[in-house]
């Protein structure tokens, strides 16, 4: 599914307003959450996502990272330069082909991942109390539907 804004749509004003308000709440909450990551862990929200991605997937080619995060390679280069200076990620050359560069996590990056992961698990435990099996299942279906929409 991809977004086509020229398509005629049946509108339910209340429904759209409710969805808009929810997206606004989410934007607001994520922004505050990102500030919290910056203050508590000394990295940006994107750097934390990069750490999570490389830790979960193993060393990744720069191209694969840029595609996953939909960031231009030139932009990613400067982001990784900063992350390397901060010693949370490092570039390593492939043993098979020295021209190929992989992005890997450092010990400091792993430590951050563990700390933030523990924090997220604790947050998840708290959020769990707000859901029932049924409401979580409904929420998750919506999450899948939203994830399948191509925003391009």
């Amino acid at each position, binding site marked *: *599914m991809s*977004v086509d*804004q020229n*398509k005629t*749509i049946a*509108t339910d004003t209340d429904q*759209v307003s409710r*969805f*808009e308000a*929810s*997206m*606004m*709440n*989410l*934007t*607001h*909450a*994520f*922004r*505050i*959450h990102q500030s*919290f990551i910056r203050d*508590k862990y000394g990295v940006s929200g994107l750097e934390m*996502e990069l750490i*999570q991605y490389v830790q*979960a*997937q193993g060393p990744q080619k720069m191209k694969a990272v840029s595609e996953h*995060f*939909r960031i231009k390679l030139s932009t990613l280069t400067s982001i990784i330069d900063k992350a390397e200076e901060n010693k949370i990620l490092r570039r390593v050359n492939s043993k098979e082909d020295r021209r190929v560069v992989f992005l890997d996590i450092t010990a400091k990056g792993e430590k951050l991942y563990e700390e933030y*992961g*523990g*924090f997220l*698990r*604790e*947050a*998840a*435990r*708290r*959020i*769990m109390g*707000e*859901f029932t*099996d049924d*409401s*979580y*299942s*409904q*929420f*998750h*279906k*919506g*999450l*899948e*539907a*939203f*994830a*399948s*929409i191509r*925003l*391009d």
Partner: protein
Amino acid sequence: MDAKILTESSLQLDENNLTSSLYELNDIYRKHQDYIRTKYKVTALEMEIIQFVSKEGKKKMKEIGEYFDIKLSTLTSIIDKIENQRLVKRVNSKEDRRVVYLEITKKGEKLYVDYLRYIQVISQMMRNSLDDGQYHGFITGMDTISQMIVPQNLPVNQ
């Protein structure tokens, strides 16, 4: 723990699945942010400010700073940028010239209407692929998570 997408068989409400859902929601949010930046040439925060003044009418800079919990100095440079894009404008109060209000411009209103249409399309696409319970369950779930991931509701002292 990783950011993998959950499968049908792993829908059980537990800590690992919920943590994965948080990662997934973060990924969706990032896509939404990227889309706004690419299509409308504003950041998600700038769009929030445009939404705010469009819906609420003109607001004092101080009120906006408080609402978004942003220092006035940071807000000033954000507003400079969207004012240069002619999406908002600063106006001096007629009662007290020292007081500065921010209000939406015609271009800003047009952008907001366009953004609202994008939200309508997303909402309709979601509506088409979900039943009533799932659709409302998703929105309620997003609101719950939005509320729970802000610092005052988080275990910040860990």
